[in-house]
């Protein structure tokens, strides 16, 4: 009886002010998104994005203190299921419900491109940014290769890509959507067919161009039909024309030149293919300490002329403590190639500092380019809360340009390696010399000789002599 009364009280308290089932989405929310982009080559790019946001109770000081900013990079890491497992554990629904059921390792790593990231950043809640919310975004991008995994066929479906279909949204998600890029289909009618047909479409200026997306909202009960699963299918009505894909306005390349194991040159080529607009690029280079950079040989040339950067910050390396840090803001003139080159010398490491496979080479981390690239179409100012996640990963404030962050390729540089068998050789040789030369000398000096009487003969000899005396033969 008393227990029942207590239970009733508990239920009343829970249903009290603001307790049970309030309708506004709370700010600690999860949004998940999958964007499928068919590429002109027949491949398909899929990008997952999961955003968790929560309010922080701390009050911050105004302004960010730059003394506490750190940049660290691991030039090469083999990414495999062992990286995906802890990444999946950060998701509220793990891989049980929602879009994360599609994250199957054996399909995600059998792709021509795989990238996963975790971004954590503060979002200002008021104008002076003294109170903040934290935002955790997890992104995973893969490009499925038509010929490796698709056996040459260019019809895609969720089941063929991920070996799973979508059944239900994550119960903790405030929004759970799939976007399919149907821009090419809207332009030349009937190139690409999406099945089941979308209930809504979304149009916006993404990365400077006007794009149209078919939207499937998993929280909308009409989308997941009676068969309780959603298997999106993309069919090409006409084979995609073999025209060259549009060249992006900014792309970059990096390489090492030179010969021998003494010195070399690091070069970065920055391409600006926009016909008439110039834009700034922030180039961040981290070079390990064992490539000693000659900063006086740093040259930046565009169209044959020297290009002075608007801002340079260089922090020299300290042996075995920190790498070189070079950060420059370069204005790329329109329709040009800018070459940034610097010469270096290779250092000899101590023999215990080499990796177990030093002849493979040592990696140099990629340069990071951050740029505000001019858009083709001006974007309208949007409310970041309403726009999809892929639009607000790098929100731009200026409608005439969009923000892009590029990474060049990592480089592999050979360092002069010593002969690792030398310690063993030295030990063998020294021990042999000591044993033979010093050992024999020592024996000669310290060995004493003394005469030893021959033994009178053992029992056998005495018995033999007895028998010989009996026979009359002279004894031994």
């Amino acid at each position: 009886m008393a227990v029942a009364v207590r239970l009733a009280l508990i239920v009343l308290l829970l249903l009290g002010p603001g307790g049970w089932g309030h309708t506004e989405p709370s700010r600690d929310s999860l949004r998940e998104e999958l964007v499928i982009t068919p590429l002109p080559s027949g491949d398909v790019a899929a990008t997952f994005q999961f955003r968790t946001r929560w309010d922080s109770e701390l009050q911050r000081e105004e302004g960010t203190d730059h003394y506490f900013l750190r940049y660290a990079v691991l030039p090469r890491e083999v990414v495999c299921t062992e990286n995906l497992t802890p990444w999946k554990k950060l998701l509220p629904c793990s891989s049980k419900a929602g879009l994360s059921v599609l994250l199957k390792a054996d399909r995600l790593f059998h792709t021509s491109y795989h990238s996963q990231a975790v971004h954590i950043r503060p979002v200002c809640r008021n104008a002076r940014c003294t109170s903040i919310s934290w935002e955790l975004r997890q992104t995973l991008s893969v490009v499925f290769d038509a010929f490796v995994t698709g056996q040459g066929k260019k019809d895609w479906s969720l089941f063929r890509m991920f070996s799973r279909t979508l059944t239900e949204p994550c119960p903790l998600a405030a929004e759970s959507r799939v976007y399919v890029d149907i821009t090419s289909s809207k332009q030349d009618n009937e190139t690409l067919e999406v099945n089941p047909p979308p209930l809504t479409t979304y149009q916006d200026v993404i990365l400077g161009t006007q794009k149209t997306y078919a939207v499937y909202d998993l929280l909308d009960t009409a989308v997941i039909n009676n068969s309780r699963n959603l298997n999106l299918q993309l069919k090409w009505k006409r084979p995609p024309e073999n025209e060259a894909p549009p060249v992006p306005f900014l792309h970059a390349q990096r390489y090492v030149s030179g010969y021998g194991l003494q010195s070399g040159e690091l070069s970065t080529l920055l391409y600006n293919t926009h016909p008439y607009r110039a834009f700034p690029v922030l180039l961040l280079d981290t070079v390990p300490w064992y490539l000693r950079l000659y900063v006086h040989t740093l040259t930046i040339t565009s169209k044959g002329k020297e290009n002075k950067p608007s801002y340079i910050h260089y922090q020299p390396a300290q042996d075995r403590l920190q790498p070189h840090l070079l950060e420059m803001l370069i204005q790329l003139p329109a329709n040009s190639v800018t070459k940034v080159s610097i010469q270096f010398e290779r250092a000899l490491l101590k023999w215990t500092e080499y990796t177990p496979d030093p002849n493979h080479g040592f990696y140099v981390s990629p340069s990071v380019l951050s740029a505000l690239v001019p858009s083709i179409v001006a974007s309208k100012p949007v409310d970041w809360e309403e726009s999809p996640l892929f639009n607000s990963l790098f929100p731009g404030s200026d409608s005439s340009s969009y923000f892009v962050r590029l990474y060049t390729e990592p480089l592999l540089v050979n360092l002069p390696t010593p002969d690792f068998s030398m310690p063993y050789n030295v030990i063998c040789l020294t021990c042999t010399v000591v044993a033979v030369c010093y050992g024999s000398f020592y024996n000669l000096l310290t060995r004493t000789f003394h005469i030893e009487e021959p033994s009178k003969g053992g029992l056998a000899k005495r018995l033999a002599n007895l028998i010989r005396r009996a026979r009359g033969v002279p004894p031994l």
Partner: protein
Amino acid sequence: MAANSFRPRVLTALAGLLALSFGSLADSRIEDQAEQFFRSGHTNNWAVLVCTSRFWFNYRHVANTLSVYRSVKRLGIPDSHIVLMLADDMACNARNPKPATVFSHKNMELNVYGDDVEVDYRSYEVTVENFLRVLTGRVPPGTPRSKRLLSDDRSNILIYMTGHGGNGFLKFQDSEEITNIELADAFEQMWQKRRYNELLFIIDTCQGASMYERFYSPNIMALASSQVGEDSLSHQPDPAIGVHLMDRYTFYVLEFLEEINPASQTNMNDLFQVCPKSLCVSTPGHRTDLFQRDPKNVLITDFFGSVRKVEITTETISLQPDLGIMESSNKEDQIDEERMEPLKYAEQLPVAQIIHQKPKLKDWHPPGGFILGLWALIIMVFFKTYGIKHMKFIF
């Protein structure tokens, strides 16, 4: 007369017999209780699984370690209690025709890499130093929990090592080696720090028995795939992948373990019989003289699984709601609903700010050794040349 005196004697004899039989019944119950008492006294299980070989042609060592990892996880030991060290990546290696898989049987029957593998020490981190630090617990302060062996004196630890070895040593990544004496000393350190209750050491390398010859700490049981002077051989190559997939000893151990479930009562004597010479070509060996219990009383799940002894109780506990916490959380929800302002992201590339920033004031440091020495030299030369009388113009 004699018959009369005989009967009480028979009666007493009968009474004595009955008393004896009751006593023996009580004794057997006491024996059962005593046996329960001497069952393994561990409360948690840990596993340290090490693959020490690098390069694609040593695929089988990674497959060995992953198959033991898979069995141990299947029988209940969670990832937080497993320290997995793989010296190279085979699953996403460029030479692997099926990425994100490591197979143990040819024709790709069993993918031991799985979907939720967590590797704690990978690639260059698998060194003798790190291995000994994990065992003894002397890790640097910033080491994450998943990389530590947080065992206590009631932990049963399984240590599995595989790679290339010789008489008295095991090679780590082609560049260094660990000797059997170092390993024995590490286990003694673990014993003295009470870091294990019982330890099972399994090694699958050539001449593996030499690695357990030097153990001297109590409560260690050891198994090896081959005796001193013998080589451990690999099982079968796969024509599609192009390398040998598993070593023989671990292949048959995996087959044996696939039949174990958390409730099975199989004991260690069965594990000693796995892979006789006809199948393995080498002679597996074992060492139990340091172990206090009889191997036939040791269950496989004492080391490979994580079996908890559960006691079911019918007591009930009623939970009281904490009114203070509930009221404050309700208040927070109300406050959040009031403050619905638009959130603002920071500027991604503030070009104007970057160009026009003031150069950062660096702290002034007094001149260091070289500069001081240089100036001292210059001043000394000056005064030696021109004489000391110029000093008075300065001071």
